[in-house]
């Protein structure tokens, strides 16, 4: 896959847009297998694996997968580690509801910036060092928690720990150096979903650690501090494993990555321009803010909610809260699967409907969760809410690769940042002031989810249509080539810089669904440009 190394957007390199989210392997007739390479898995010409064997730890491909998702999981655990212990921490530090809410906002805000920077770091140092640097430099921030003795300190430390969520970017980047683009969708989706589970696992792990430490004789206000040593040590251990067992590329380490010459480096300002001026980018930033964003918010508030509203003990509240985050193991892949399934029949229009249905479903159940007065009903509503929100996340990333080819990396980064921003915003608006209770906050959040999902009805691709309107009948403007080609100026097209976009456009015709007569494709040589020898 001839890719533009080092250019903006190349942190999503490998992603073409044609990958089925659920292809477990690529038939060797589709991608030529390099039979000279001596790897445990079949590989392509770049030595990227063409098969995804979950239970294997074979070096380097599957080992990278496991190192990567476990690092991301660890960072999720430490970012949300305080949440299930808030009932103890709030008494120790004399916190008010505002302090707790602000800390929750802080915990997701740090990573907005760090995720945007991480792409650059991975381009410069490689994903292995990117991951290791982040996870080992955020270990001291986790170890700072035992020092905290005031609300200000608590908020600051949660903000700093939140930076570690940028391991999402290193995780996805590293996967794309190791796995063929035809299965990268599944690999990345699995890694993201399993990493996100950390937000659920922590609700189980931290109360358990707290209980064990209490049993050895500690008082509550000391026990919670000691509990934080475990996530901190996991950071250090994972960092060391990544450094010693990981490698940047299938063939070895980073140094070669940047030496490849003859790259057409794209201009960052242009890539940013095409991302920002595409209205679809902003709609999906908003939508992801209300699917991933509310998932992160709920990770922060749900344990305390069940502890207070239903008078449960810390352990039980933690178990219930954990099931919210752990649903990610199936819910997010299910969302991707639904998107792909809908696309098979209805193309992009099906994908858009899938997002709308799943996210609205999630919003309705969030509203009902806030209104539920009995424990069994509340738990049921919470689980249905989690499935809706997390599946919507998966479905949204089924559409993102198609919004733009030139600016794919930046759009993915912006969407991810939008998720964190949405989380910060919902926590600030609904869970920080004392004006309404947490249960009212959940209900209002549900209403806001439904409202903020409506803009997806406005998304329209001229070549494929939107939720309510079909594709444009214009022969020229209604083609994939026109849509993706319009991101390049005439001079750029003359230089042949848009060739990968054209290739992508060709591959993306699958988004037409089962439309019988596809629009006549224009000649492979667009007017005003000579075919370049790539």
């Amino acid at each position, binding site marked *: 896959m001839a890719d533009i190394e080092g250019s903006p957007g190349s942190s999503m390199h490998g992603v073409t847009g044609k990958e089925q989210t659920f292809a477990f392997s690529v038939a060797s007739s589709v991608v030529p297998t390099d039979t000279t390479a001596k790897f445990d898995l079949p590989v392509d010409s770049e030595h990227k694996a063409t098969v995804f064997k979950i239970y294997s730890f074979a070096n380097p491909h599957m080992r990278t997968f496991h190192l990567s998702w476990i690092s991301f999981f660890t960072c999720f655990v430490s970012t949300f580690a305080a949440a299930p212990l808030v*009932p103890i921490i*709030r*008494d*120790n530090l*004399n916190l*008010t*509801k*505002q302090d707790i809410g602000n800390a929750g906002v802080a915990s997701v805000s740090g990573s907005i910036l760090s995720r945007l920077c991480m792409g650059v770091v991975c381009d410069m140092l490689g994903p292995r*060092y990117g991951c*290791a*640097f982040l996870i*080992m*430099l955020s*270990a*001291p921030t986790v*170890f*700072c928690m*035992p*020092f905290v*003795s005031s609300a200000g300190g608590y908020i600051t430390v949660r903000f700093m720990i939140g930076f570690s969520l940028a391991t999402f970017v290193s995780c996805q980047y590293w996967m794309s150096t190791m796995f063929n683009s035809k299965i990268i969708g599944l690999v990345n989706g699995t890694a993201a979903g399993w990493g996100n589970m950390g937000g659920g696992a922590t609700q189980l792990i931290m109360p358990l650690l707290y209980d064990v430490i*209490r*049993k050895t*004789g500690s*008082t*509550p*206000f*000391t026990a*919670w*501090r*000691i509990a934080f*040593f475990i996530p*901190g*040590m996991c*950071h*250090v251990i994972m*960092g*060391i494993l990544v*450094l010693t067992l990981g490698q940047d590329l299938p063939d070895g380490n980073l*140094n070669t990555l940047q030496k490849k010459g003859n790259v057409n480096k794209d201009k960052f300002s242009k890539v940013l321009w095409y991302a920002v001026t595409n209205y679809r980018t902003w709609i999906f930033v908003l939508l992801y803010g209300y699917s991933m964003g509310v998932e992160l918010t709920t990770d922060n508030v749900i344990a305390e909610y069940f502890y*207070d509203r239903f*008078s449960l*003990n810390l352990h039980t509240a933690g178990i219930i809260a954990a099931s919210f985050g752990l649903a990610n193991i199936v819910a997010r892949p299910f969302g991707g699967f639904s998107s792909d399934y809908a696309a098979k029949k209805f193309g992009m229009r099906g994908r858009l409907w899938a997002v709308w249905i799943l996210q609205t479903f999630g919003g309705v159940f969030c509203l009902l969760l806030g209104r539920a007065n009995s424990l069994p009903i509340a738990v049921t509503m919470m689980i249905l809410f989690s499935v809706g929100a997390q599946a919507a996340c998966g479905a949204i990333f089924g559409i993102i690769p198609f919004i733009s080819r030139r600016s794919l990396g930046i759009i993915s980064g912006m969407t991810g940042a939008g998720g964190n921003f949405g989380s910060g915003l919902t926590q600030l608006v609904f869970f920080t002031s*004392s004006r309404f*209770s*947490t249960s009212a906050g959940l209900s209002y959040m549900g209403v806001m989810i439904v409202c903020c999902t409506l803009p997806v009805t406005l998304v329209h691709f001229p070549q494929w249509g939107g939720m309510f309107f079909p594709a444009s009948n214009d022969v020229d403007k209604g083609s994939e080539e026109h849509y993706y080609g319009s991101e390049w100026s005439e001079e750029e097209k003359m230089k042949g810089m848009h060739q990968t976009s054209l290739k992508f456009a060709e591959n993306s015709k699958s988004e037409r669904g089962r439309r019988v007569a596809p629009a006549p494709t224009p000649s492979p040589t667009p007017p005003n440009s000579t075919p370049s020898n790539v």
Partner: protein
Amino acid sequence: MANSAFLVSTVLLSCLAATCYGATISSLKETLLVTASPTPGQVVKAGEDKITVTWSYNNTFASGTDSTYKTIQVKLCYAPISQVDRAWRKTVDNLAKDKTCQFKIVAKPYSPSNNTFTWTIERDVPTATYFVRAYAFDSANEYVAFGQSTDAHKTTNLFQIQGISGRSVSIDIASICFSAFSVVSLFGFFFMEKRKAKASQQK
């Protein structure tokens, strides 16, 4: 450990009592007189200081009113100032849902006078402003009466407890050591690899 058992049993007891019988605080008569040893505005330290609580039956009420009282529970309760912006300490009328009094000081069989108890403040009591309240239960464990060391608006005779910080020197030192190890091993590895790469390039 024992505290959590007390806490759980107190919660259970009050749940059982109130959910079965739906007692509300406004329906209870304030027939007990309660005093606590800290002077108004005094700050006492959790884990170190003691408070002495005394309670007795208020004889201005008709005799025989206390004939149903069987047990007394004395509890430490949050003053309104410590409940602001903290819904987990909210006062509600329904005693089953009321979260004002979360710490049990002592439970004893009822006697009309000469009741006193000296309590070493537990180490899980947070920093806040408090008063003391005593509840009377009948033989069916139903709330029947109460008394408190402050007035009806909970503005007088409040005292402060300074909770423990929970920090300790050994935890602080361990934190610093682990953090230093993390940073040093990261940069150590990085520079070692760089040196190896340079050395192999020069070969």
